C-alpha cells in the first residue's frame, strides 16, 4: 500500500512534468499547426542553464531565473528565425527543420558543457522527506514539483479561460483563419504563445534537473513521451494535455514499478527486469495507438 502510494505520487510528478512540456507543444501544434521536434531542446536548455547558474552562484532563485530566461530567449529566437517561415509549409518541412535544430542544440550543449551528465544538488531545505501518510516518507522536492505543476496548470487555466489573450489563443486553436480575418495580429500572438511554451518547457527542465541527471539526450527522451500526451489528450487542448499527462505519467510509472515484479514470478530476476522495463515502456505507446484508432482526435478534443 505504501509502495502503491509512493508510485502514484511518482506518476503524478512525472505527469506534471509532462504537462508543462505538453501544454506548450499542444498550443504550438494546435494553433500554428507546427510539429516542433525542438521542444525537447528547450527543456534541455532550461535544465543546463539552471544547473550552470546554480553551480556558479549557489543561488536557487538565480538558477530558476537563469533557466527560465535561457529557455524563453532561445524559444523566441527559434520562432523568429526558423519556425515563422514554416507555418505555411507542410509537416514534413517542419519535421526536417526542427530535427536540424535538435542536432544543433545537442551538439552546442556538448561544446559548452561536455558529454558528462551534470548532477544538481538540492539545497538543504528541499532535500529531506516528509511523511505523506504515517509511515510513508516522500521526498519534499518531488512534492514541490507536483505543487508547482498544479499551480502552473491553474495559472494556465485562468490565463486561457479568463483573459483576452486566452480568448485569442482558444479562438486560434479552433479557427486560425477566422482570427486572422478579424484583424488580430496573429504573428505577435504566435510569438507570445511560442515564448510561453518555451518558458514552460524550460521550467520543466529546471525542475527535472535534480531528479534525473542533466544530460544531452534528455530532451529527446521526454519529447516523444510528450507527443504521446498531446495526441492522447487531443491536439490543441490544454485540458486534454493535463489529463493526458497525468494518465501517461501514472500508467508509465506504475507499469515500470509492477511489470518486472510480475514477470519475476515466471522467469529469473535479471531477465524479468529487462523484459519488464521494455514491456512497461511499450505500454504508453500501445495506449496512444489505441486512442488514435478509437478516438483519432484524442480523448479531449480542442473543438468538441
Amino acid at each position, binding site marked *: 500500500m505504501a509502495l502503491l502510494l509512493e508510485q502514484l505520487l511518482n506518476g503524478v510528478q512525472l505527469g506534471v512534468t509532462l504537462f508543462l512540456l505538453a501544454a506548450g507543444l499542444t498550443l504550438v501544434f494546435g494553433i500554428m499547426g507546427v*510539429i516542433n521536434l525542438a521542444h525537447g531542446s528547450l527543456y534541455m536548455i532550461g535544465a543546463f542553464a539552471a544547473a550552470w547558474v546554480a553551480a556558479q552562484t549557489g543561488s536557487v532563485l538565480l538558477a530558476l531565473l537563469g533557466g527560465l530566461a535561457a529557455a524563453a530567449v532561445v524559444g523566441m529566437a527559434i520562432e523568429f528565425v526558423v519556425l515563422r517561415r514554416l507555418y505555411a509549409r507542410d509537416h514534413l518541412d517542419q519535421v526536417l527543420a526542427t530535427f536540424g535544430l535538435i542536432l544543433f542544440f545537442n551538439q552546442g550543449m556538448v561544446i559548452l558543457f561536455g558529454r558528462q551528465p551534470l548532477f544538481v544538488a538540492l539545497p538543504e531545505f528541499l532535500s529531506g522527506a516528509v511523511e505523506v501518510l504515517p509511515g510513508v516518507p516522500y521526498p519534499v522536492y518531488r512534492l514541490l514539483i507536483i505543487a508547482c505543476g498544479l499551480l502552473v496548470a491553474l495559472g494556465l487555466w485562468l490565463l486561457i479561460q479568463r483573459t483576452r489573450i486566452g480568448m485569442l489563443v482558444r479562438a486560434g486553436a479552433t479557427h486560425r483563419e477566422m482570427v486572422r480575418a478579424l484583424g488580430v495580429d496573429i504573428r505577435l500572438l504566435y510569438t507570445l504563445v511560442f515564448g510561453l511554451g518555451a518558458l514552460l518547457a524550460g521550467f520543466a527542465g529546471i525542475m527535472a534537473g535534480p531528479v534525473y541527471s542533466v544530460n544531452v539526450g534528455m530532451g529527446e527522451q521526454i519529447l516523444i513521451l510528450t507527443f504521446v500526451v498531446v495526441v492522447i489528450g487531443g491536439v490543441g487542448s490544454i485540458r486534454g494535455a493535463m489529463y493526458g499527462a497525468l494518465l501517461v505519467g501514472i500508467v508509465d510509472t506504475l507499469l515500470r514499478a509492477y511489470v518486472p515484479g510480475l514477470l519475476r514470478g515466471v522467469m529469473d530476476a535479471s531477465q524479468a527486469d529487462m523484459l519488464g522495463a521494455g514491456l512497461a515502456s511499450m505500454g504508453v505507446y500501445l495506449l496512444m495507438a489505441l486512442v488514435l484508432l478509437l478516438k483519432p482526435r484524442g480523448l479531449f478534443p480542442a473543438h468538441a
Partner: protein
Amino acid sequence: MRERIVLAALLAAAVALPWIAEALGTPATVGVATRIAIYAIAAASLNLILGYGGLVSFGHAAYFGLGGYTVGILWEHFRLNEPFLGIIPGTAELLVTFPAAILVGGLAAAAIGALSLRTSGVQFIMITLAFAQMVYFLFVSLAVYGGDDGLMIRRPNAFLGLNLRDPATMYWLSLAVLVFWLWLMGRVVRSRFGRVLEGVRQSERRMAAIGISTYPYKLAAFAIAGAACAAAGALWANYARFVSPDMMHWTKSGELMIMVILGGLGTLLGPVLGAAALVGLEYTLSGITEHWQFVLGPILVAIVLFARKGLMSLFGRWGPGNG
C-alpha cells in the same frame, strides 16, 4: 537518350568505385559508399510511400531494424545450434536470411499499416511513430538478443561462396540490390498501381469519386516499402556485423525522412542523392570536427528554408514532377 547515357556512366562509375578508391589510396571510401547504398535502399523504400503516396510514416526505421534483427537472430541460433522458438533452425546463408528479412519486414509493415492507415494526417504520423517505438522497446527488452547492447554477428552470411567480409564485395552486393530496387521502383511507379498511389497523394477524395477504393493500394505500398527497408536492414547487419535497437530509434526514422526530403520527394534518384549527401556530409564534417552535428543541423535548416524541392531540383528536368 542522353539521360540513358548519363545513367549508364553513373552506374559504371559506381561499379568501378572500389578500384578507383584503391588507385587513389583511399580504401575507406568503399565503406562509406556501402553505407550510402544501403541507406539509399532504405530511403528509396520510404520514398515509395512518402514521396509517391504522400503517407508520412515516422516509424520507417522499425523495418530497417526488423530486417537487421532477422539476420542477427538467425545467426545467433545458428551459432548456438538451437532452433528459434524451437522450430525454425538458425542459418547463416544469405540466400535464406535475406528473403526471410524481406518477409518479416513486409508482414510487420502489413500488420502495422493495416491499423495505421485507418488514420490520416498528423494522426498517421503519430501512430506510425507509436508502433515503431513499441518495436524499439520490444527489442530493448529482449535480453536473449542482447537487449540495449545489441547483437554481434561474428561472421557475415555466406553467399554463393563470396566473401562478404571483403569491403568491395559487400559494396557490390549492396549496389546490386540498390540498382534492382530502383529499377523495380521505376516499373512500379509507372504501373497502374503507381498511378493510383500518385492519385492518393494528390487527392484521396478524387480517387474515391472515380470509384477506386484507396485503402488496399495504400496498404500494399506500405507493405512493399517495409519489405524493401528490411532488405536494407539485412544488408546493414552483414555490413556492420552488428545489430542493435539503435537501428530503429525514432531519430533513425527521422534521418531516413531527411534523406528523402533532402534528395527530392517523389523522384527516383532523389533518395540516393539524399543518402549520399547526408552520409557524405556526416563523413566529411566528422573528419573536420568532432562537433559535426553543430554544422549539419543549421545546414538542414537552411536546406528546408531555401532549397524547397530538394537537391534533385538542381538537376533541371529530372527534378520533381518530371522524374
